[in-house]
């Protein structure tokens, strides 16, 4: 502050009151500036039309036993498989096997018949094979990631290869017997 313009009669009390006023005003101004920044930041979050697609409903009706479909949810492939009796029992039998990530098959499904998983290899993000009948299903009869050779079993659990985790099960809910909502 400039000493030259400070008039001699201004008392300490005056200065104190002035400093408080300046400080309070600066604080209010700072709050205003911060609330201006928030809309700019929030505009980079997912927009309404993206959020509207963050849940999808899938009709399971047309899927036969032993068939799989892939649906897109939040830009990612979701594997939905109607498993055969053989696949289910193989998966349950392996609950006790030496698993890299221990999960019971019953914890990975809501109804044993239906397996719903995000179809992205937990290693480096490739999409495993095994959805189509003609594709290789790996050594454990589930899915096989061709990028670096990860093998998943009929419950989508990692059994062999570099991937660290089982295929992720998204949040989903049965709306009725034949349809689910993912998200």
């Amino acid at each position, binding site marked *: 502050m400039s000493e030259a313009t400070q008039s001699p009669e201004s008392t300490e009390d005056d200065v104190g*009151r*002035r400093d408080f*006023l300046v400080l*309070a*005003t600066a604080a*209010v101004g700072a709050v*205003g500036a911060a609330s201006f920044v928030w809309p700019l930041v929030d505009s980079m979050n997912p927009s*309404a*039309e993206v959020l*509207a697609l963050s849940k999808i409903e899938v009709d399971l009706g047309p899927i036969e036993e032993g068939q799989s479909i892939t649906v897109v949810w939040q830009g990612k492939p979701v594997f939905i498989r109607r498993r055969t009796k053989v696949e289910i029992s193989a998966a349950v039998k392996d609950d006790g096997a030496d698993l890299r990530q221990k999960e019971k098959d019953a914890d990975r499904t809501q109804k044993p018949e239906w397996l719903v998983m995000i179809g992205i290899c937990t290693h480096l993000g490739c999409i495993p094979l095994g959805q189509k009948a003609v594709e290789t299903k790996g050594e454990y009869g589930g899915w096989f990631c061709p990028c670096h050779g990860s093998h998943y079993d009929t419950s989508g659990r990692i059994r062999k290869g570099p991937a660290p985790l089982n295929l992720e099960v998204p949040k989903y809910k049965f709306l009725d017997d034949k349809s689910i909502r993912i998200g």
Partner: protein
Amino acid sequence: MRKTVIGVAAAVLITISGQAMASGGIELPKQHWSFEGIFGTYDRGEAQRGLQVYSEVCAGCHGLSLIYYRNLMGLGYTKDQVKAFAAEYEVEDGPNDEGEMYMRPAKPSDRFVNPFPNDKAARAGNNGALPPDLSLVVEARVGGPNYLYNLMAGYVEPPAGVSVMEGMSYNAYYPGHQIAMPSPLSDEAVEYADGTKATVAQMARDVTTFLTWASEPNMEERKGMGIKVLLFLIVLTGMLIAVKKKIWADVH
């Protein structure tokens, strides 16, 4: 200099508002609207009835392509109501695994279904005239809601000596008066669920409120925030003036 400047500022505003009225040239009788003024909100009853008028009358020719069904929740409908409303319409989706496009019921995340697949089809179905999309019609016309209301209610017999071309209708408020759209509204054209009597004036009002909402669905958010921002700025400016006075107090 200060007074002169205030005078000049007033002149600017007059000039600019004069400019806003420049086009058109037909005087539009003013209606009172619920969404006017800094505290204005959309009358939900009017807007919901307006949706009914749009769906049953306008939607045959006019799209509303910028609106999603989910937006209707902003008009006070519940999620399930919106879902049911959307499911009445079919949208094309696909291709499916066989590579074919297929029709499915619309979902809240879909846009309002267009009545025509493209502009050419729309012209072909309307004697060569293109029914404009209504998503922004209130913002895209001089006079906004007043124009729309008067247009809807402005179908009258042509004055003596004016001949109306084949396929055109006479409208008191349409620029040039000859409009390709035949009078869309007639008394009891829709049956309101809430028992409101469906006069032409009532339907014109309702559909105008609905389409004003469609033009700017977040107007209420804008005005609400604006009041807070203005109050904040007034307080801040008051404090700034006090600070300035204190600081300058000892300058002679």
